[in-house]
């Protein structure tokens, strides 16, 4: 297995700052509700949450959602163990930002939206992602906030490696 560096720690740091500011531009004086998609979207949403708290006076909420029981690939060979969902705020009539590290086919985001709607009817759901793998979408889902868009061939994985001092995004072949 070989890997090729796509983004280094500095680039990711800048990207997180930019994504946070993009969110702020759309949420002037509004409460911000971030929900990370389990498992890996949590790490990204926590980082955005921390930055937003430090650069804005907006009230920021943070939660996580597990989409396991809403996936469409159950009983299709892939066995998935559930993670926990932790949403301590009402989502009814709120603008929610779903957060995931890599957007690929769109099926995870669809499942996460299904899971989220079990908690109520948000006013709006937006999507924030660090990496958007374009041209591989299987459902009509597009992100509202994107760190970087990349084009890949099918057998290449995009892996975000969260390591506090040395975050990186790599292509894995």
């Amino acid at each position: 297995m070989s890997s090729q560096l796509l983004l280094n720690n500095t680039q990711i740091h800048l990207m997180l700052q930019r994504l946070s500011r993009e969110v702020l531009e759309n949420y002037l004086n509004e409460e911000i509700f971030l929900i990370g998609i389990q498992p890996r979207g949590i790490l990204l949403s926590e980082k955005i949450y921390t930055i937003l708290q430090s650069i804005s006076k907006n009230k920021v909420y943070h939660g996580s959602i597990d989409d396991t029981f809403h996936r469409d690939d159950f009983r299709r060979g892939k066995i998935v163990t559930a993670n926990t969902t932790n949403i301590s705020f009402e989502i009814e009539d709120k603008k929610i930002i779903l957060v995931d590290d890599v957007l690929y086919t769109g099926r995870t985001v669809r499942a996460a939206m299904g899971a989220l709607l079990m908690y109520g009817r948000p006013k709006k759901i937006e999507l924030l992602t660090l990496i958007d793998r374009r041209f591989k979408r299987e459902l009509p889902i597009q992100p509202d906030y994107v760190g970087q868009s990349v084009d890949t061939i099918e057998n290449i994985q995009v892996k975000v490696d969260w390591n506090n001092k040395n975050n990186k995004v790599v292509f894995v072949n």
Partner: protein
Amino acid sequence: MGQLSTKHLIAIEPLQTNDIELILDTAVNFKEVINRPIKKVPTLRDITIANLFFENSTRTKISFELAQKRLSADVVNFASSSSSVKKGETLLDTVNNILAMKVDMLVMRHPSPGACYFLADKIDAVILNAGDGTHEHPTQALLDAFSIREKLGTLKGKKIAIIGDVMHSRVALSNIYCLQKLGAEVTLCSPPTLLPKNIAELGVNISYNIDETLAWCDVANILRIQLERQQTQYFPSLREYAMYFGVNKTRLDKLKKEIVIMHPGPINRGVEITSDVADSHHSIILHQVENGVAVRMACMYLLANTTA
């Protein structure tokens, strides 16, 4: 990622500890699901489950049915009292006819021990035992273990007493296997006439003294006196049983510690347990009922994977 090592859930005895832990861990997530505003997930929307109850049941049947509906499965119910079994149809014929209608999973309660094993050899569908005679009641043991773990954090090293009619109880046998696999120490406490011969060979302690047992244990799982299964008189009277083996407030007040009180239901109030104990803060009986739905959802979710 986890997968059960078994296609069916017929008994706790053959399960590996990993299987039990996977079920309990998955049940934690389903407990969160059933406490959401919308208590339903679409996971089993392409599965049809038949509940075959050849013996009466209230809470187990409702618990399974709710679990199935909250997983979005299609559910059909069968009660032997209003079926062709009354006309002389065999168990295998009945089941094969139901399976011919494209049913994927069977939840079965049957008065004969081993009925699920008999079927498992002959059909393709997944079987989930909801109690077979005096043999096993695996989901009850799992929900009991889940409830203890939820209350005490772990079962490892905990002292659990099973008190009452062990002889006629399928819950007791499943509990013994399940609790021991998870590292708990088990004591059985009942009149000698209500203990099966050689039960000590399972590695449990035996006690005939309720006060000593309560003083020893962290958890008392109190079983119902199953008068309907008793052909002979195993003790002189219910009043005498209540005096010598009933768990009451006086006995609990004598203890210098808190213990957890459990009961699989239905309760004979005033016989094996008094109302003031059953309804006290020691009791987690209603938590057991709530957890039953989550644990059964977990079992069916994990077993459905084997039908792929």
